[in-house]
């Protein structure tokens, strides 16, 4: 029997679904078994749809608890407080991976207090619900935003909006880790198939996005310097599409290892794992768990000069449009492996720790790699994540999966 899918996007995911053996596209009001929808469709239709047990959809109903900047911050702060109360300061400090953030206008006054404590610092203002770098600006003086508040510098379209848009003001990281003088951020993919219990997978591939121009604090008006989203970079005057400005995660990890040594980089990547796990735990009880739902998040991480990772934001709909052949191949693999994990075909046992390029990072608790019988106790426990490591997924998949019904094993 075939699997009927509905797809609201026209990019890489369309190709992946199209090529999957036994999957057939359905449109309009036809019944579906699998839906790759955009968040707009979800908002309008989720509550009215009845889904049978086997049906799968690619978003959680209230994913915005994690992906909207103001809500994420709220949830993280609350989780941190809980940890401090129930476990202690040290444990709570493990949540200190997001810069001081305040929601505006609701937290305006506490923000001003914090702002005054450290004059001269740079802050970044981000609209809560927009993406691709739109509406973001940097400031150093309260005067800059007081003007902004008075609608002085807002565009016409912003003034027309019926509701007051929420913003977050965040401490800008002034000492980003630079490679050859350029700032970059990391895009990492995390797949969550359940929140209660929390089951999350980390993809080995990802990339570092470089700013097209050299980093300097003296030019905070030049948004092209500071924002590394490819979407923003594309509009910069000296953008050269052929340059690509991306490094594969493997390249970055290898570069950092050459510079700082194996142990330092291993510690760094463990800390990055911590960012994912804690952020997901912070919304675990808030997100409406639903066995029909899974979600592929695009995490944006920034490293500072001390090699500390900072969480910039989480995307529920990471861009699946490809900027180059290499990028297309990465996203294709990623989506293919996502579908393997969702496992509409029922080929998995549920005990797997690795599927293609995904490693099981959290399964109601930390997940460790299989160690040999000669392991010497708990000090040898190694986390099961391999971000930026070799992704020999084809070989692994061949060994793991039974072929599709009707397909000969190659």
């Amino acid at each position, binding site marked *: 029997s075939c699997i009927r899918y509905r797809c609201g996007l026209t990019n890489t995911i369309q190709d992946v679904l199209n090529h999957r053996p036994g999957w057939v596209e359905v449109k309009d009001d036809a019944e579906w078994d699998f839906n790759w929808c955009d968040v707009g469709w979800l908002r309008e239709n989720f509550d009215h749809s009845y889904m049978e047990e086997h049906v799968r959809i690619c978003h959680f109903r209230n994913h915005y608890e994690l992906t909207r900047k103001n809500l994420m911050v709220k949830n993280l702060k609350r989780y941190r407080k809980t940890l401090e109360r129930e476990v202690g300061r040290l444990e709570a400090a493990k949540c200190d991976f997001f810069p001081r953030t305040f929601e505006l206008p609701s937290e305006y006054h506490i923000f001003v207090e914090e702002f005054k404590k450290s004059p001269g610092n740079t802050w970044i203002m981000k609209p809560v619900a927009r993406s691709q770098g739109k509406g973001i600006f940097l400031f150093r003086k309260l005067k800059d935003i007081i003007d902004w508040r008075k609608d002085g510098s807002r565009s016409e379209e912003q003034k027309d909006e019926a509701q007051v848009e929420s913003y977050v003001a965040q401490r800008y990281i002034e000492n980003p880790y630079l*490679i*050859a003088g350029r700032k970059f951020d990391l895009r990492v993919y995390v797949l969550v198939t359940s929140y209660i219990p929390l089951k999350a997978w980390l993809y080995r591939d990802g990339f570092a996005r470089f700013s097209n121009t050299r980093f300097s604090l003296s030019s905070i008006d030049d948004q092209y310097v500071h924002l590394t989203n490819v979407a923003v970079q594309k509009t910069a005057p000296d953008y050269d599409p052929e340059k690509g400005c991306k*490094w594969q995660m493997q390249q970055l990890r290898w570069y950092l290892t*050459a510079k*700082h040594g*194996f142990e330092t980089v291993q510690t760094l990547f463990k800390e990055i794992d911590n960012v994912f796990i804690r952020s997901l735990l912070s919304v675990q009880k808030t997100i409406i768990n639903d066995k029909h739902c899974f979600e592929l998040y695009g995490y944006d991480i920034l490293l500072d000069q001390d090699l500390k990772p900072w969480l910039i934001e989480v995307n529920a709909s990471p861009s699946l449009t490809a900027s180059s052949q290499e990028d297309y191949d990465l996203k294709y693999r990623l989506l293919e492996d996502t579908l393997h994990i969702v496992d509409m075909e029922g080929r998995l046992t549920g005990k797997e720790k690795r599927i293609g390029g995904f490693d099981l990072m959290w399964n109601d608790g930390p997940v460790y790699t299989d160690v040999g019988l000669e392991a010497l106790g708990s000090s040898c426990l190694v986390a099961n994540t391999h971000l930026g490591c070799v992704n020999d997924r084809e070989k692994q998949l061949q060994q793991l999966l039974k072929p599709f019904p009707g397909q000969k094993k190659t």
Partner: protein
Amino acid sequence: MMDESTELSVSITQIVQRLKGTHLHSQLEKQAKECLHKPEIKLETLKDDVRRVLKASGWERKLQNAVYRELHVLPPPGHPRAPPEHTKEPLAYMLKAQASWEKRILKSLNSMCTELGIPLARKRPVMEQKELTNKWNEMGTDEPDLSNFRPVYAPKDFLEVLIGLRNPNTERSDDLTVKSHWGLIQVSLNVHDIPQMRETYAELGLSYGQLGIDDHTHVPPDLFESEHIHIGKKVVSEQDSAAAQQYSRQGCPTGLRAQLWSLILNTTNDPEDITHYEQLKARVIHHNLLVDNLIYKDVKLTASNDDYYFVFEDYLYQVLLCFSRDTAVLEHFNYNSASPPKSSIQSKSGSEQCAVVYPPNGVIPFHGFSMYVAPLCFLYNEPSKLYSVFREMYIRYFFRLHSISSHPSGIVSLCLQFERLLQAHLPQLFYHLREIGAQPLRIAFKWIVRAFSGYLSTDQLLLLWDRILGYNSLEIVAVLATAVFAFRAENLMEVTSLASAEAVLADLSTLKVMPLLQIFLFATSI
């Protein structure tokens, strides 16, 4: 012929001569003087005690490393009555060919200069100097109009020259027989075959562990990798140049490579090195050279377009512009068959013309030159350190890839070795490619000239360069070129044109270098 002991004393004299007056020399003297204050130094046993202290404090090791480095760049001892040209290149016809090639390059450079009306060198006005100083860390943002500049030559031009090389002492037979050489290089040099190389490159053999093979994900690290890393750390802490070189034969761990290479090349980042670099930088600020435009153009055309190296664009300018002005590089012409080009400039009064070396370092960059530097940016990010390492690698190895000589690591020998290996071990393939007008060297030449930089993925390239340093020879580059053809032989047998042969070999980014080398050297039946 000198006997061994005379040779040795000549070498010792030469090395002592070279080390005298160096910074290391003055540091050793200073250290020796300072340790006179130590209580354990006794007048009766002064010499031995001072030696002991210097050994314990690591200074003897530094001296050892310096001597070891000198041995690398010391030309082989020749006959006391041989002219200096002999040291550069013993074969007269090679020397002549190199000289005439140089004439051509210089002519090309001069005519570009006349055509464009740009002087070979020009002092920068003060405004321009200020601007450049401010922009020193981001010269890549400059977009000068380079459309009128062409590279002085490209590798394929150089290949034509090598193909035309003839030894006037050999009798040429135009009949193609089974015994004749099928390739493009028509001179005969002594190059190694597989049995000889199995001995030389013993550490690449099947019974030794290798980085690039035995650090693969499915191999447990206890089998080789952990121990190898452990030894690497010890080598670094001992600061032993010779040990590092031996160690590098089995590959350098990513986390230790920068230090190990620095040790092998004996490059330091002392205040005097930094000062030297700053002086070069000052020269760049003061004067603009015509070759600077060639460097810009080269970087923009090659490294900036590379997926891995685009990030390092600025570093490349910072290294190459300074390199052009470094007269210390002129020293390597003592053992290079090439000679620094001389250009005549008018003296200030305009009345005389005198010949000066141009560019100051005597090296005219060609298309792809910046690729010698680009991979090093992954290891070093301090400009002065990056510069020192690149310069040493150039004067030890890279210069041989673009000058005509009979040296075993010279480009002629490498090309010949590639062709001979291919003909001996893949005769069917070679014959087929010849027949369809796809001479293998025409495809492999660009890899060899660049020591594969820009063709392999960076991590694989550095594993290859580990072995160049480890064995102090570029021979491995020729072997790899052959191994690549061997690997893609099946596909190559199917092609029917040069273009399709090029297409089969266009993308080497997925190749794993060490397995290819190991299979070719140790699993080929002979």
